[in-house]
Structures are given as C-alpha cells and as structure tokens.
C-alpha cells in the first residue's frame, strides 16, 4: 500500500509540475509571438513594414508552431496560421489596411488562446 501511495503522489506531483511547465511555456511562447506581431503591426500602421519583417515573424512562428502542436489543439494553430498568412499576403501586395485587420486578429488570438487552456470555471464546464 505504501508503494501505491508513493506512486500516486509521484504521478500527481509529476502532473502538477508538468502542468505548471506547460502553462508557463505556452504562455511564454505566445507572449513572445505577440510581441513580434505587435511590432509588425506598428510598422504596418506606419507604412514601413517590409517583406523581411513579415518573413522574420513567419520564421519565428514556424519555429514556435512545431513545439506548440504538442500542447494546443491543431485547429487553433491552423486558424492562427491562416490569419497570419492572410496578413502576409496583404503585406506583400501592399494592402496595409487588410494586413492590419488580420494582424489584429492574430494578436487577439495570441493573447487569448493560452487562456483557453487554463483552469477556470468557464473552461471546465
């Protein structure tokens, strides 16, 4: 029985540590991503965003995306991908207003998606 108690406590503790790690990791990754998109948004607003800026954000996102797939449902990531690609396409064609609209959505998602997986009554039920 002692073995079972220790095993249960160990699994529970490991789960708790893992959950804290995941929450911080996902929050941190989205936080960094949000910062990069925000910077791109400001440049776009000022009309100074270039294709290189967009490529840098894309490279950053692709690196983070491959890791976030482990923790976040793939549909959320696909939707973020879609909006980001829309924004980049608009930037490449010089449609800054449309790019801003899509970047705004991406920023909002980067802010809210991690919160969807935090223990809160509205998420549980």
């Amino acid at each position: 029985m002692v073995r079972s108690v220790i095993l249960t406590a160990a699994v529970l503790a490991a789960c708790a540590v893992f959950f804290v790690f995941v929450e911080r990791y996902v929050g941190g990754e989205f936080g960094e991503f949000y910062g990069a998109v925000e910077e791109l948004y400001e440049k776009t607003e000022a009309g100074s965003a270039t294709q290189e800026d967009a490529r840098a954000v894309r490279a950053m996102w692709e690196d983070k995306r491959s890791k976030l797939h482990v923790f976040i449902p793939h549909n959320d990531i696909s939707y973020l991908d879609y909006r980001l690609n829309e924004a980049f396409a608009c930037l490449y064609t010089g449609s800054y207003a449309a790019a801003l609209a899509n970047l705004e959505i991406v920023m909002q998602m980067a802010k809210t998606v991690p919160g969807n997986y935090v223990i809160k009554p509205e998420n549980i039920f």
Partner: protein
Amino acid sequence: MALIFVRTAVIFLALLAVMRLMGKSQIGEMQPFELVITLLIAELACIPMADTSVPLMYGVISIAAMFVLHQLVWLLNLWIKPLKTVICGRPSVVINRQGIDEYQLKKNNLEVSDLIESMRAAGYFNLDDVYYGLYEANGSFSALGKKEKGASLAVTLIDGGKVNEHNLEQSGLTRERLDGMLKERNTAAKKVLVMTLDGNGRIYLQRRGRPYEILHAEGTARW
C-alpha cells in the same frame, strides 16, 4: 493540460455518481468506479488517436488523470470506511428468512424477475432454495443455499401483482382456480409480490409486506 486533467476528473465524478444511482442492475462484477474507468478510458484513448486535431498528449494526460483518480478512490476506500459505502455501495440482502425483501429490490432498481434470473444463474431454481440471497456491491449475486433443493423448475405465475397468463396455462391452472386459491387467503393477484409453481405442485406465495408461504396444488401439470 491541467484543464484536461480537471475536466477528466469532473466527467469521472459525474459518471461515478450516475453509476451509483443506477444501482446494481447496471453493474456486473465490477465496482462502480472500476466500471466508470473502463467506460472512460477507451474513449479517452480513442479520441486523440482518431482525431488528428487533438494532440496525443491530451489522451496521455487523461489516462494519467484516470490512473490518479483510480488510486485516490482506492486509497479513500481503504482509509475511510464510510466513504467506501458511498463510492462502492454495500451488499443488499434481497432474500431473507421471511422471503424476498421488496424494499431492497426496488432500492437497487431490480424486479422479482431479475432476482429469479440471478438465482437460476447461481444454480437455484426455486425461491425457497436459499436462506439468504444478496447482491454484492459489484452487482454479483451470492446465496446461502439450503441443503435440500427443489428438484423441479419453478415457473412464475404472478410477478409484482401481474399474472403471467402463458405460465398459468402451461402449469395447468386456470385463472378461476388461481383467483380461488388467492381468495382463500384473503388476497388478490395485485397484492401478491410473487407466486411460483414448480413441477411437483409446490407453490411459493409471497404477499406484499408479508413472509412467504409454501402451498401445494393438486391437479396441476407435472414437469
């Protein structure tokens, strides 16, 4: 991830409560929480496996949650005895020396026909072949049998106040004769919990809220 863990725990508790409320008729050879785990674990493993939009990690976390919950329930059962009754239930004595305990049967969502079926599965073909019969917490049936068992199969003539016309015809009794027999005892079919007749003309009669009686009927069919 922690959210998946908590959501699994909520589903587990809800299912466990429902299983306990359903009573023993819905459980077979398993404790309620074991059945809940069996029901959940297959789904939890299957959904992330089949649905590629769900990370596989969600399945792993759910299964880890099930393991932790199983261990917690098991430990609580060991440490806090009253909690074991709440989680797993307790055995129900459905047959005692007075006959069938209708209250215990109803409490477990069972009918007399279910009891007769359980008895047959346990090797007893007459209701008075046992001193005591009980449903264990896991839903299995146990009985303390009498040394001498009836040598004939009993058929149910009245079950829960309803006359089984088919069995009545097979046994060679008429409705008039049955009603006459009941009238002799100042009762009617609707007041009878159970009445069976075996191939030797031996009748087991139990009125609602009364101990059982053994009667003999002449001129019935023999089998």
